[in-house]
């Protein structure tokens, strides 16, 4: 009984622990294994060396995909955080129609990209959407044709992704803002701190853990931005908007090149590891001392 009580926290975590061990790390191990084989349609388990990685690094398409990941991931995370935080702060000012606005900002998450992709495609298409509309108003020189320019198309993906995810980030931040002790805010007000500084210097630092949540969520979405690319550009023009996730999917499921897919997955995870782990470390460490 005593033992049970003392170990309850660990017991509670145990199922998650087992699940994560098998279904995340076990599967990562499986992927690592497969990446060393010549698996094609289906997994084969004879180790064959690092050939898949050599192929991967030789592929110009993979280069493009990785480049895009950095451009897209960086911009998407930064912009979504900024917009999400801004909207959360604005909504926190005792806004009248808060409930309605909040739902409007949030709803894009609700819609399946299978179809919103089409809507975005239309909106961004120079011949159908915004460009056409603005030109219709008489601005003949207006041009917004990123969707069809290989070097710019990735930015349209950023726009659509921000549109989809920033509302959720807003919700996260709003929940965080609402858990900050109001007395502290009052103290700052009396201290003569302007509202802007109250947010930047006092509230936002106390929300550091919420930033961690937002970062992880956004990074997750960025790395897995698969549906979005498929729906909006399908990787095009050419493969200009390919991302590692779409590359991997193409290899694994349309091309029957599982070994290659596994290798790309491993590289992807290593990159994530390299970026996320230092961040996790810096976020989790100081809390330990308190």
């Amino acid at each position: 009984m005593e033992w049970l009580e003392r170990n309850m926290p660990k017991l509670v975590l145990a199922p998650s622990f087992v699940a994560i061990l098998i279904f995340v790390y076990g599967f990562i191990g499986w992927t690592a294994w497969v990446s060393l084989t010549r698996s094609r349609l289906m997994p084969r388990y004879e180790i064959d060396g690092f050939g898949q990685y050599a192929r991967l690094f030789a592929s110009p398409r993979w280069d493009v995909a990785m480049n895009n990941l950095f451009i897209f991931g960086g911009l998407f995370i930064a912009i979504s955080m900024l917009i999400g935080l801004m909207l959360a702060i604005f909504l926190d000012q005792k806004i009248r129609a808060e409930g309605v606005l909040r739902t409007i900002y949030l709803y894009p998450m609700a819609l399946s990209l299978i179809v919103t992709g089409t809507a975005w495609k239309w909106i961004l298409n120079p011949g159908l959407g915004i460009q056409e509309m603005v030109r219709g108003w008489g601005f003949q020189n207006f041009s917004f044709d990123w969707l069809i320019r290989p070097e710019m198309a990735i930015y349209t993906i950023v726009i659509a992704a921000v549109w989809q995810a920033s509302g959720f980030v807003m919700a996260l931040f709003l929940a965080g803002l609402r858990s900050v002790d109001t007395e502290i805010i009052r103290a700052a007000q009396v201290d003569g701190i302007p509202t802007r500084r109250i947010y930047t210097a006092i509230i936002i630092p106390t929300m550091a853990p919420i930033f961690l949540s937002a970062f992880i969520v956004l990074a997750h979405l960025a790395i897995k931005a698969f549906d979005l690319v498929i729906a909006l550009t399908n990787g095009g023009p050419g493969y200009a908007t390919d991302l590692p996730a779409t590359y991997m999917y193409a290899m694994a499921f349309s091309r029957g090149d599982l070994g290659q897919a596994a290798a790309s997955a491993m590289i992807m995870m290593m990159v994530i590891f390299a970026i996320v782990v230092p961040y996790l470390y810096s976020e989790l460490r100081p809390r330990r001392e308190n």
Partner: protein
Amino acid sequence: MPVLEIDHLHKSYGDTRVLHDINVSIDEGDFLVLVGPSGCGKSTLLNCIAGLEPISGGTIRIGGRDVTGVSPKDRDIAMVFQSYALYPTMSVARNITFGMQVRGVDKETQARKLAEVAGQLQIEPLLNRKPAQLSGGQRQRVAMGRALVRDPRLFLFDEPLSNLDAKLRVSMRTEIKKLHQDLNASIVYVTHDQIEAMTLATRIVVMKAGTIQQVGTPSQIYNRPANMFVADFMGSPAMNLIPARARTEDGTTRIEIDRDGSDPLVITDPIARDLPSQIILGVRPEDIHEATGQAHLPQDLHGAGGEVMIDVVEPAGADTYAVTHLGGTPVTVRLRAESAVAAKRSFPLAFDLSKVSYFSPQDGSRLN
């Protein structure tokens, strides 16, 4: 021109009325202390002055300007919160300097003021800690520091010393007093500490359940309480409030107090007062004296007392308190520590009639 003028202020939380028709004004350099039982609305009043709580009625003027609806940061006030409200992610030093930094005070001045305040508050070794690493009293001092580095038109302090030990409290009290005198600062100060109230205030406001009971100098409040509530509330141990009968007779006032198992105690006030027949006699424990060695007593105390039985004796360091029964209530007498008083023994006492108050038993108001 008054620094702060409060006119007919009302404040409710939903249906709960918390402040009723508050009228107070504070002049430049005033040190106003708010006292009153827990929950009477002191913090709420401070919050209203600071603009942290919307008021339900009335007006507040600071420096002649109507600030009803003005945001706290534009009221030019500094405040110490009862709950400290430190910025949790900032170090102690930054908690204190942050306001200055925002106001664009130059680095040097910031450092100087920080050092100064840290010295006053004895928190130099803590400057790099986070609030979560501080003890209760340390947090309170940091909260004080945050206010002290400012130079506002009005300071608001909400029980700023409640978590400090006596020594530190005395030294902090001195710092606050100095602040008041040196800077001629205007201060509104909430405390439940009688000594703080008496020593710091130029004026005291006594509140009860959201209404003001009396406004006056410390000596007015202590010596001439406006009603039984104030009399009872101020002073520790509290003023004895003894039911008695009064009659004017031969240009003097004759006061009879019931005594257990004996004749009533009869006291003669040399002044003819127009009192109702039933009164409450208010007398502070230190105004009841031991009447053995008559030499100890001021001249006019002779005859103003008699023998009583002592129920309990409580030694308390410098003093000894003796509790007896009169008029059906316990009466506390404060004696020097070396007094030979003992429980269950008879004891000769005398009232200092120049210091007593008479109250109406009906509404508790002062009669003399």
